């Protein structure tokens, strides 16, 4: 049973990754903004499935919630506004230079990825003194949480979660300030 699950896994990973790449290409190249946004939804749910198969159920749940909210935000931004017709391309030279630079980054990155241990080996278990070993061994005893991810985010690295909440509220304050209809200063001296 165990052997069969292991052998079934890799094709699922490849299929999901290819699905996500195809959805990304469609999202990048289509002219209609709404279909592009829908393709983003496909990528997000593909990523959520991928997290589920990578044994990360907490992330899969969070990813679904965040994906639904993000899709609502994106559709709010694009619906009835996708009348932007991009006429003419950027300067040919600029596009060529950016494509070449992106390709060079890709090739260099592939070289770097070859130095990583192969997919499926536990890096943290073979590194002496890795923090994750402590979390796995002593998490239940020290924090009392059966879910080790919860014990990391709420106990070992609680300050990180506090910082996350701060960043989230700051960005929401920024969004409300930007979206406010008219500020007091603009009412006094109207912008031309």
């Amino acid at each position, binding site marked *: 049973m165990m052997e069969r699950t292991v052998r079934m896994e890799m094709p699922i990973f490849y299929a999901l990754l290819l699905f996500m790449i195809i959805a990304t290409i469609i999202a990048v190249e289509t002219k209609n903004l709404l279909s592009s946004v829908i393709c983003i939804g496909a990528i997000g749910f593909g990523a959520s499935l991928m997290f589920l198969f990578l044994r990360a159920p907490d*992330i899969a749940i969070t990813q679904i919630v965040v994906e639904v909210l993000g899709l609502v*935000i994106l559709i709010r931004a694009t619906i009835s506004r996708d009348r932007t017709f991009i006429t003419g391309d950027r300067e040919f030279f600029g596009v060529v230079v950016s494509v070449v630079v992106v390709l060079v*980054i890709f090739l260099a990155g592939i070289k770097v990825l070859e130095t990583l241990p192969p*997919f499926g080996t536990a890096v943290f278990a073979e590194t002496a003194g890795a923090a994750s070993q402590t979390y*796995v061994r002593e998490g239940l005893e020290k924090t009392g949480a059966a879910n*080790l991810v919860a014990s990391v985010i709420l106990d070992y690295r609680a300050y990180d979660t506090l910082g996350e909440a701060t960043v989230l509220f700051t*960005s929401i304050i920024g*969004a409300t300030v930007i979206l406010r209809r008219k500020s007091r200063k603009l009412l006094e001296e109207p912008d031309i």
Partner: protein
Amino acid sequence: MPYALCFLLFIIGLYCAVVKKNMVKIVIGIMVMEYSVNLFLVMLGFRTGGTAPIIGRDDIVTGGTLTELFINSSVDPLPQALVLTAIVISLGSLALMISICIRTYEKYGTFDITRIRRLKG
């Protein structure tokens, strides 16, 4: 090889953010990069045939110690916890970027960044 496909996803997002002229397309490119980085970090902690880092009743020996089977098959909980944080933050940054796009559309009537003259330095 899964790492390479994940990196290809990142590169497509980078291309989209650098080359496209539509503001919403640039936001989409940034989102694709966020997805691929999250995916890569979780993939680093994966081990073949592993279990989720959640302790069940069968994994505890009497006396409160964990079985060696669980310790040797659990995936890495640390990247998962940090990616959880990153996903929520990406929602906040998406809201901020989209609100900037909406304001710009109200002011200039277009998403085309070459026609938004006053953004030029």
